[in-house]
């Protein structure tokens, strides 16, 4: 069906109906009022027959779409002629013909264009003249036969009229059907317009408002009559008036459309509203400009939406930052605690007091030698039955010498300490004072000995021993000094022990009252400490009667085994952390930090584990992701509806819409896609902020990926007159990457390249092997970027220049998202450019 068929059918309807009726009327009048000659009557009858037959056939043909043009030209003039003939036959020939033909001419001029009227008039004039000259004889006819003939003719005429009415009804039905469908389409359009909340304004070529829809009036606060036929500049800010004045207006009319012109509405109250205007010039069939249809989008909603999302994003980001910080602090705190505990644990469990005495002895000995002249200093410390003998010598010693010292000390120990000490039970540590009398050989036997008992807390714990090769080497003073030293060692040790005990008690009560759970195990993985907080978290009431097996069930739940495994694999006293979900006694999430405890020799003494309840933090995290899904869902649902209806209209209604309308629909469709991309981008960004962007890597062929992406841009590039070129080595090695995400990055690059290129520009896509990487670059010949902006463009919500941004739209999120995607792949992303000379964006993917 053709676009023009509707008005034609409509015209035809009128012409056909009225000529038919008129003919019938005239004929009836003639029959009733006039006595006319038979031959005239017969001629008139034939004229009616021809009229009716012609109208029926031409209507049928036009409905079928045949000979449209011919019928259009003929139907008017011929009907005029038919009517004229009828008028003539009904007696009109007796009076002034010209007046008589006025009536049909008026009808024709109501229905047809002037050209056709003139044509019809000329026809009429010729026919009338001919008829006037040729009307000659009259034959009278009277009687019954005449009456019968009249009745017969009535009958035939009625039959024909029934046929006409029939046809007309059918035709009207078809017409109504069409109108109904049109209304249905109209309803859809209304729905769309309502959902989009866009203003529709029809502007005539003089820049005055021809039509304006309710959405526009609602925004502007005007009534329809206040704006109709008024200059369109009334509703736009002064700055934007340029669009509606020459030369811009002239240019728009010539160009035929304007896209995304960012302007400002001024409402009746004087408020200013940011809007985006897209318009198309309407032209009639002959290409004459009828006006401009402008779709004006209220940008407040989108701007508020973006601002709202930005704000929500910022808040979430701030919250997660503070959360992160908290968790960080927590982790640090836990690490610190774990470290502290390991030291205390070392003191309380691992370190025997003998060690401390060694330290005390060492400090004392440093000065002792200045007071007493001896050759050997030894200290014997008893631990139960065994003793530790430390010998300090300023000489090279041999086994015989050692044996002498040992047996001397063992003997003395028996008498001084009242213990049965055997030489074999002594552990001997030999220390040499390197800075002192080095190299002197032991000469002869040890001649002098001095042994003083070391009494700690009234318990003899050991012996201090000095000896010399000289005879009578030690004076009374020396004996006193050594006693004093022994006393000092004892009292220092006592003080230290008290201190440790106090410190231990402090730590123990701290551990008891801590809100974090603390678990300590010794070197054999036996439980040493399980504080109340840990019991609460695990739901343990008492551990006193608990079998080890059951205990370890709890520990398994905490994945302690795995933590211990990790710890033993790692060197040093690293802290290992893990998040664990527990279902019993109540569902909680724990952050667990385990740390190895070692003594000063680096031997493993046990493990300290700190448990922290992070259920609340996790819950907030969950709420955040729920919020993001909610926003996504709520935004996409209405978009789905709008897109669905628009594509249905685009698809199905090919005959119902003008080309302009279809173009508008495709704009709507494109805008929906863009909006949906913006939402996806915003979601991606929030995912990146939350660190929840995950890659689904697999082995991919970069070359074919490039080909596929480039193909999808072919049409877009062509529409902008831009040449797309691809170059890559067919033997590029495959890389391990997320194909969807890499496609996203490449799409973003190419989209930008085309967007920022001028007509006849060129976009060059290249992939090549670099050092351990595949390098993909997209170069354009567009406006370029100045070096100070190289880093900015990869930041969120940044575009280069204000002037650029108003013409070229986007969320400014594509590059930051691309950067993150490439970063997650372990690749790099950068730009090289010179303002005005095009840019080259490159990313790399590491080869695996």
């Amino acid at each position, binding site marked *: 069906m053709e676009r023009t068929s509707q008005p034609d059918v409509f015209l035809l309807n009128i012409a056909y109906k009225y000529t038919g009726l008129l003919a019938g009327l005239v004929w009836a009048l003639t029959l009733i009022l006039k006595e006319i000659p038979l031959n005239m009557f017969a001629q008139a009858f034939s004229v009616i027959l021809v009229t009716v037959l012609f109208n029926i056939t031409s209507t049928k043909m036009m409905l079928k779409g045949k000979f449209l043009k011919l019928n259009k030209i003929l139907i008017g003039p011929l009907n005029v002629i038919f009517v004229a003939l009828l008028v003539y036959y009904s007696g009109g020939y007796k009076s002034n013909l010209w007046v008589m033909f006025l009536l049909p001419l008026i009808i024709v001029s109501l229905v047809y264009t002037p050209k056709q009227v003139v044509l019809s008039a000329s026809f009429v004039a010729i026919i009338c003249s001919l008829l006037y000259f040729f009307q000659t004889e009259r034959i009278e006819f009277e009687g019954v036969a005449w009456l019968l003939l009249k009745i017969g003719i009535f009958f035939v005429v009625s039959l024909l009229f029934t046929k006409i009415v029939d046809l007309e009804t059918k035709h009207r039905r078809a017409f109504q059907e069409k109108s109904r469908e049109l209304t249905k389409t109209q309803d859809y359009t209304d729905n769309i317009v309502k959902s989009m909340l866009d203003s529709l304004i029809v502007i005539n070529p003089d820049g005055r408002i021809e039509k304006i829809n309710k959405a526009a009036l609602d925004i502007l606060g005007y009534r329809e009559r206040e704006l109709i036929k008024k200059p369109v500049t009334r509703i736009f800010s002064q700055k934007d008036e340029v669009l509606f004045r020459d030369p811009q207006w002239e240019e728009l009319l010539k160009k035929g459309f304007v896209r995304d012109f960012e302007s400002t509405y001024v409402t009746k109250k004087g408020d200013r509203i940011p809007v985006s205007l897209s318009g198309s010039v309407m032209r009639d069939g002959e290409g004459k400009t009828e006006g401009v249809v402008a779709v004006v989008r209220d940008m407040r909603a989108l701007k508020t939406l973006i601002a709202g999302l930005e704000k929500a994003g910022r808040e979430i980001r701030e919250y997660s930052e503070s959360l992160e910080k908290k968790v960080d602090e927590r982790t640090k705190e836990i690490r610190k605690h774990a470290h502290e505990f390991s030291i205390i644990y070392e003191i309380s469990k691992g370190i025997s007091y003998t060690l401390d005495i060694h330290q005390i002895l060492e400090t004392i000995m440093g000065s002792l030698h200045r007071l007493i002249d001896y050759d050997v200093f030894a200290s014997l410390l008893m631990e139960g039955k065994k003793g530790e003998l430390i010998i300090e010598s300023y000489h090279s010693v041999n086994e015989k010498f050692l044996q002498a010292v040992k047996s001397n000390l063992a003997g003395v120990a028996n008498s001084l300490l009242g213990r049965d000490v055997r030489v074999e039970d002594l552990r001997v540590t030999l220390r040499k004072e390197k800075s002192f009398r080095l190299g002197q050989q032991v000469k002869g036997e040890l001649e002098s000995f001095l042994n003083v008992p070391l009494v700690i807390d009234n318990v003899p714990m050991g012996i201090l021993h000095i000896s010399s090769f000289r005879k009578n080497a030690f004076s009374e003073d020396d004996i006193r000094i050594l006693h004093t030293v022994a006393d000092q060692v004892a009292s220092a040790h006592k003080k230290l022990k008290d201190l440790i005990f106090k410190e231990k008690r402090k730590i123990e009560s701290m551990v008891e009252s801590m809100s974090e759970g603390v678990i300590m195990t010794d070197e054999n993985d036996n439980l040493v400490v399980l504080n109340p907080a840990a019991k609460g978290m695990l739901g343990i009431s008492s551990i006193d009667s608990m079998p080890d097996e059951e205990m370890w069930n709890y520990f398994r739940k905490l994945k302690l085994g795995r933590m211990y495994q990790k710890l033993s694999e790692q060197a040093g006293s690293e802290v290992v952390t893990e998040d664990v979900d527990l279902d019993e006694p109540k569902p909680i999430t724990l952050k667990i930090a385990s740390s190895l405890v070692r003594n000063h020799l680096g031997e493993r003494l046990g493990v300290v584990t700190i448990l922290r309840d992070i259920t609340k933090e996790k819950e907030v995290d969950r709420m955040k992701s729920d919020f993001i899904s909610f926003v996504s*869902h*709520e935004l996409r649902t209405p978009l789905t509806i709008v*897109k669905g209806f628009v594509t249905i209209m685009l698809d199905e209604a090919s005959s119902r819409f003008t080309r302009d309308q279809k173009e508008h629909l495709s704009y709507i469709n494109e805008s929906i896609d863009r909006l949906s991309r913006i939402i996806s981008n915003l979601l991606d960004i929030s995912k990146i902020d939350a660190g929840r962007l995950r890659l689904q890597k697999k082995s991919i062929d970069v070359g074919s990926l490039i080909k596929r992406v480039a193909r999808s841009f072919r049409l877009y590039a062509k529409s902008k007159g831009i040449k797309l070129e691809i170059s890559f080595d067919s033997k590029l090695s495959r890389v391990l990457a997320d194909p969807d995400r890499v496609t996203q990055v490449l799409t973003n690059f190419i989209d930008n390249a085309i967007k920022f290129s001028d007509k006849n520009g060129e976009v060059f896509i290249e992939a090549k092997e670099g050092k351990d990487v595949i390098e993909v670059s997209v170069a354009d010949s567009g406006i370029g970027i100045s070096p100070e902006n190289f880093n900015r463009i990869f930041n969120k919500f940044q575009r280069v220049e204000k002037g650029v941004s108003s013409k070229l739209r986007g969320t400014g999120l594509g590059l930051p998202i691309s950067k993150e995607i490439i970063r997650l792949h372990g690749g790099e992303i950068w730009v090289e450019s010179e303002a005005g000379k095009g840019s080259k964006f490159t990313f790399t993917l590491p080869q695996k």
Partner: protein
Amino acid sequence: MKMGNKILVIDDEPLVVEVLKIRLEMNNYEVIIARDGVDGLERAMREKPDLIILDIVMPGLDGYQICRKLKEDRKTKTIPVIMLTALGQSAGRKKGYSSGAYDYIFKPFDDEELLNSIERALKYKK
């Protein structure tokens, strides 16, 4: 071939349902509609559709639960289910497949993508 195939659309959003109905009927499918999970399950049992298009976020039973129920029942388990959702996360996709869906399509959907998926699902069922 596809003439007369019956598709059950389960979605609580009336206009989404309307769009789907028009689009599917344009492609010669017979469309029946359910506004929630309970109604949807009942219709699936009673009317034995050839395919089900299922929204995920709905009051009452959600799409995953409905899909699981459909796959558990002997009468409905062979009916392919296409999930159509405005949720935009790949985690949801995994969950959708694991609850037995044949395909998982994001809103706003592309007509061609949806129709292709339907055709493939029907072929697969045969």
